[in-house]
């Protein structure tokens, strides 16, 4: 009983550190240090003196942000709240392994890059490379996101290898490029090449896709609930399914199930809504 009470107390004993940008940044700021792991067990002064780059100038966090520390320090349940427009601030939450980051506004590129745990929530839009190479944790974007969500580094084949990315708005090109594991959900539309080079994992697109979904995928699952202009010729139709199981939930179909990308000897599965894509009915004769 005592232990439970203690746990509950710890549960509620949150610390929230709030950052307000002091001005509107017009050149990129590289702030890898906005990260619960870096803030944990540091005094207010230490946090204020963390280094960030603004363009080619090194500055401290205090130079750019007003920092407000709200409760007493404890390494767990640390929350960083960023209030204001930080769309020029890159690498927020990069490599974080615990805690929460809440961005109330727009976030910059490379948000949650290589993150290993914890939760990032953005109430506005996020830019490109969100969750690139992430290993675990959750990223939730209430607005739109840019290109290369959960992608690999340029040239590398190691994309997102775990965790969850949920985008309530639209996403750009090459969502889940070289994705290896994990789950990406886009409630809006996606650009071209969703799930390109995908090795495994799941991408659920509730809106439309601009096309070329699953190019060069080797394994994994892509579900497009909306309109898909055409299926890549190196995919072959397999079966029609009434519903698809995605991340433990069932999505009502019916769906055309395609297998590909055969050009890469792939065995990935591309599900495309039957009702939203009457132009794909020509594939039915090959069933």
């Amino acid at each position, binding site marked *: 009983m005592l232990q439970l009470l203690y746990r509950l107390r710890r549960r509620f004993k949150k610390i929230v550190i709030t950052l307000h940008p002091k001005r509107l940044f017009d050149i990129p700021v590289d702030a890898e240090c906005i990260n619960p792991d870096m803030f944990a067990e540091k005094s207010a002064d230490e946090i204020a003196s963390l280094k960030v780059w603004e363009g080619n100038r090194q500055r401290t966090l205090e130079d750019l942000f007003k920092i407000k520390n709200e409760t007493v320090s404890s390494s767990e349940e640390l929350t960083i709240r960023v209030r204001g427009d930080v769309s020029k601030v890159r690498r927020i939450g990069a490599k974080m392994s615990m805690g929460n980051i809440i961005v109330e506004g727009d976030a910059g590129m490379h948000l949650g890059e290589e993150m290993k745990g914890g939760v990032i929530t953005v109430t506005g839009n996020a830019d490109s490379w969100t969750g690139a190479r992430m290993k675990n944790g959750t990223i939730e974007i209430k607005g739109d996101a840019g290109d290369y969500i959960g992608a*690999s580094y*340029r040239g*590398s084949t190691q994309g997102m290898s775990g965790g969850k990315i949920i985008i309530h708005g639209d996403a750009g090109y090459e969502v889940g490029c070289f994705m290896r594991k994990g789950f990406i959900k886009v409630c809006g539309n996606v650009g071209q090449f969703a799930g390109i080079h995908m090795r495994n994992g799941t991408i659920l697109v509730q809106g439309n896709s601009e096309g070329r979904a699953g190019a060069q995928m080797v394994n994994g699952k892509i579900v497009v609930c909306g309109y898909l202009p055409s299926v890549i010729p190196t995919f072959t139709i397999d079966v029609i399914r009434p519903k698809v199981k995605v991340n433990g939930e069932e999505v009502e179909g019916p769906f055309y199930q395609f297998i590909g990308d055969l050009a890469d000897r792939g065995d990935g599965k591309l599900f495309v809504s039957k009702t939203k894509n009457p132009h794909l009915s020509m594939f039915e004769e090959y069933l």
Partner: protein
Amino acid sequence: MTHLIIKNGFVYDPLNGINGEKMDIFTSNGRIVEKVAEKEAKVIDASGMIVMPGGVDIHCHIAGAEVNSGRLLRPEDHVKDVEVKTRLTRSGVGYSIPSTFTTGYRYSRMGYTTIMNPSMPPLEARHTHEELDDTPMLDKASYPLLGDWWFVLEHLRDGLLEECAAHVAWIMNATKGYAIKIVNPGGLEAWSSGRNMRDIDDSVPYFNITPREIIRGLCKVNKLLNLPHTIHVHTNNLGKPGNYVTALETMKCVEDLAEGDRPVIHVTHSQFSSYKGSDWRTMSSGAEEVAKYVNHHSHVTLDVGQVIFTDTTTMTADGPFQHRLYLMTGNKWVNHDVETETTAGIVPFRYRRKSAVHATQWSIGLELALLIKDPWKICMTTDHPNGGPFTAYPSIIAWFMSQVARKKTMMKISKRARRNSLLPSIDREYSFYEIATITRAGQAKILGLKQKGHLGVGADADIAIYDVNPEQVDPSRKYKTVRRAFRKAAYTIKGGEVVVKDGQIVKPVYGKTFWLDVKTSLPMEVNDDLKQKFRDYWTIEYENYAIPERFLHASAPISIKAEV
């Protein structure tokens, strides 16, 4: 007027037979001298340290169009290894294909002062020399690829040996090259029509010549021209199980051309040519057979081409081999056909401990180095970056010097490879003297560089000092100390100047570029027929093809009197 005295070091100078004697080395104006007055000189106290000639690397791909394509291909290789600009050094990136300046700094930090860039398509010579000029801290040279050059093939087919020699002399001058490099003789030309050579008696399409004839022909040309290095051969069937037979055939085919003890052929990265078996599942080590042959013959020298367990980038002029590698890995691939001259290929590759094939490759490299008794016949290389980056040399030194180090790595490798490896049965451990031989003295001797690789009077004052005391440290047990010492030279002295101290660059310097100025009695001018062919076949006109000497940052021609 700079004088330097290196005091009380344990000197290892195999070319002069000095084995760990405590002595002083004097340098003056970039040369090693008998003695200088102590009050005029800067004194370096090397007591308790090893003093060796500056390191020489006979085979490392560090410059040229191919290397640069490799750099473009691999941004993910660079992002993990970034060098920040300092007051003295430029910024750069690694890892397996470091940028030019970083390459120079890293070699220098390990005590290396001379390196050879082994594959230069003659057409890309200008680019290669531009990059070599941007590689500081080192003296360097480059080998033009001639094994599949159309005119060489035509001359050799028609039996015009002397004309061929005059032509090669012209190429050495035109491309500012140092030695004849032969890569997969005939195979690269065949690759242009989608084929490869099965063995050294296969016929090259259109030219109707065999690899055997190319190797023998160029070996004779090499002798006619009196070139300081032998032919530098990358064998046919490289990287194929069962290819040790081809390697042996290649060595045997020039056996009769040897005179005395002078080698006539250098088989490069021989680890990649020493595989037994019929396919990858049955692949095993052919090191014993190759070593046995080399132990009984003096006309051949080798370099190891040791494999390191790491993520690297393979790049060779051997287009068909790279294509096979691409099919095997499914990785990204660059394929290039250099007009009438050669081909090239690049594929990123990761050597894994747990892969039986990769672990066997690792074992073969060490077996070769340990089974070949004479350290003057073998050089330590990784075929940078094909077997791994050159920065792994200290680890290889540790494996050579310590059975414990080898055992420790053996415990981590694939079980099948461990079972088949010959290493547990070999108890040889290299001494510092032998390490000095395979990393510098032997390499310089094989290359015919008279000024390098030794500390005798008159030699270039290229010296490496490592902070390890051979009287106190037993390398076979304390291999980690040795590895650490070789990773960061206590001092590197280049041309009589201290350029590295405690593993840090203290003075950036530019090195020379060696090339052969071959003097033939036959006219070296190219005849009208050849000029017309340049017009017909090449994208570059004959007049623009040759590199003028003033193009090099610091040209160091070596005059050679040829017999034709």
